[in-house]
C-alpha cells in the first residue's frame, strides 16, 4: 500500500496527504491506498490551489497494523518520527512487525 508525503511549504515540516487539500503532520491521518490507486492519489495531491501546501510530494510504501500506519523504509520511519539521536531525538516509529501487526 502507498501514501503521499511531502514537506510543508512554509516551514518544511513533514506532512502526509489526507485527501481534498488537507495535509497533516500526523502519518495516521494519511490516505493509504492500494498500489493500483497510488498514481491517482498522487495526482489528487498535486492538484488544488496554488501554492500547493506541500513541496515535493512523493509516494511511499506503508502498511496499516493495529490501527497505525507504518512506513516500510527506515528513511520514512525517521521522517515520520524525527531524528533518532541528538537534542531533538524522538522514539523511532516501529515497523509493522514490532507493533504486532
Amino acid at each position, binding site marked *: 500500500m502507498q501514501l503521499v508525503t511531502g*514537506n510543508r*511549504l*512554509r*516551514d*518544511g*515540516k*513533514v506532512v502526509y496527504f489526507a485527501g481534498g487539500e488537507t495535509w497533516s503532520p500526523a502519518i495516521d491521518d494519511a490516505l493509504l491506498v492500494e498500489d493500483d490507486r497510488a498514481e491517482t492519489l498522487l495526482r489528487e495531491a498535486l492538484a488544488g*490551489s*496554488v*501554492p*500547493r501546501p506541500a*513541496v*515535493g510530494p512523493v509516494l511511499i510504501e506503508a502498511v496499516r497494523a493495529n490501527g497505525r500506519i507504518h512506513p*516500510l*523504509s*527506515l*528513511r520514512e520511519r*525517521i*521522517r515520520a518520527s*524525527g*531524528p*533518532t*539521536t*541528538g*537534542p*531533538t531525538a524522538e522514539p523511532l516509529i516501529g515497523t509493522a512487525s514490532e507493533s504486532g501487526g
Partner: protein
Amino acid sequence: MYRYDDFDHRFVDERVAQYRDQVRRRLAGQLSEDEFRPLRLMNGLYLQLHAYMLRIAIPYGVLNSAKLRKLAHVARRYDRGFGHFTTRQNLQLHWIKLEDTPDILAELASVEMHAIQTSGNSFRNITTDPFAGVAADEIEDPRPYAEIIRQWSTLHPEFSFLPRKFKIAVSASAEDRAAVKMHDLGLYLRRNEKGETGFEVLVGGGLGRTPLLAHSIKPFVARRDLFSYLEAVLRVYNRYGRRDNLYKSRIKILVQSLGPAKFAAEVEAEWRATDRDAVALPDNYIAEIASGFELPDYDRSPADEQALEQAIADNPAFARWAKHNVTAHKVPGHAVVTISLKPVGETPGDCSADQMDLVADLADELSFGEIRVAYEQNLVLPNVRRDRLFGLWQRLDAAGLGSSNIGLASDIICCPGMDYCSLATARSIPVAQRLARHLAGREDEIGRFSIKISGCINACGHHHLGNIGILGVDKNGEEVYQITLGGDAGNGAAIGQIIGPAVKSDDVTGAIDRLIAAYEKLRQGEERFPETYRRVGAAPFKEALYAAR
C-alpha cells in the same frame, strides 16, 4: 578580520531584499518550487528530511565574538537552540522555517555574514588552516589570500555556470591542517629562491563517488599572477569539464581523464595566452587586505609557567586536555586552544546556542574576540595566554566543552547522515556515538587516530581520509557499513581502501574494536595507523575484522 566596506554592505543588503521578495512570491504562489529551488539554494537554503536547512558561510572558518553570538541568537530564535559545524568550516541549522529565512539573512547581514554560495555549482567556502596567523610553523598568514580569493570567486561572472561545485583550500604551514589535497584546487604558500611568496597549485582532488587526491601542476605561481593562473585553471575546466553526466562533472574527473601533465599543459597554454597584467594582483591590494588580519596587541610579558605546571600536576583531567587540545603559538606565552565539539556520546560538530555564547564570551576575555572553525568540526580560540589555560578549561568543562580528545579516536568527523540529510542512505551519528563511547577509555593507548563517517557516497564525513573510514549504505532496506582502511588527510594524504564486505550496524563497534586491536598489536614504535597499514598490508586487518564471522 576582514571588515565589509560600503560595497559589501550594499551588496549583501540588496541580496537579502531580493531574496525576501523571492520568498514572498513563493509563499504567494507566484513562483513554483521548480522556479524557487535554485533561488533558495543560491542563498544556502536546502530542504532536508524534517525541515529546511540553512547553511551559513563562515569564510575560511574565521569568526569573531559578535558573529558567533549572532549565530547563537539565530539558532535560539529561529531553530531549536543548536547548530552543526561542518567539514567546510560552515554552520548548518537543521530546523529552519522558509518564512523566517529573509529575517535570518537580514540578521546575519547585520554582522557581515550571509549564506551565499554555500550551495549550487559555485565556488564554495574557501577553507584554510584553523591556526592561520598564529601557527608557529607557517611562512605567512594565509587568511588574506583566502579573503582575496573569496572576493574574486564571489559571483565571478565568467564562472557562474561551472560544470559543478568548486572547492578551494589554502595552507601556509609545514603541516597541512586544511586537507588541501582533497580539494578541487589547493594552494600551498611557498617561497622561491629569491624569498618571494607565491603558490604551489594542486588540482583535481575530491572525495565522493570517485575519491582522488589533487596533483601538483605548478610548483610556483607568483602572487601577482594568482588571479590569472586561477582563471586559466577555471577556463580549462569550464571548457572541457563534463556537463552531460553529474557523476563525471567535477574537475577531478577531467584531470584524471586528461592526465595531470596534459591538464597542466592546457592550463599553461591558456595562462600564456592571458593578459596577465590586466588581472595582476597588486602588492598594495594584498597589503590592504592583510591589514585586516594584523596580529592583536599581545601581552608579551612572560606567562606564569610555574602556575600552569602546578595546575597540570594537580589535575589529571586538565593535564590531558593541555596535552591534546593545546598547540604552540608563534608568540611566546600564548597558546592555540582547540575546543572539542566531540563530547563522548554526543553528535560530532553540534554546538548549543548557550555554548556558542560562552565561547564568544571566552573569546572576548581571552582571545581578542577571535574564534575559528576547524574542518574537523571543532572550534579554536587562537590567542590564549598560557597562564589563563586552566581557568579556560574549567569554564569549558563546566559547559560540556572540556573534552580532551583532539586528534584521538573519539574526535570523529561525522556528517549528519540519515537523521537529517535527504541524500543519506544510512545513519552516521549513532555509529559515531557508539564508537566514541566504546573507545573513550583507551584513547591514550591508541594514540593519534582518525575515524571518519559518512552516511552516503557523497562523503561529507570525509570517510575516504579516515585512518578508518566508515560509509553507511542501504542494502535491501538495511543499514550496512563499508569500512576503508589507511586513509589520511594532511601532508601524508591517502585514500583509504575498502577492506571487504560491509558490516551490519550492530557489528560496527566490534569490527572497529578488532581493527584497532590488530593495529596496536602490529604497530612498531610510534607508528601511526596508515604507516602500519602500508607496511603490513590489508591481510592481517582483514583477518582480524572477519575472523569472528
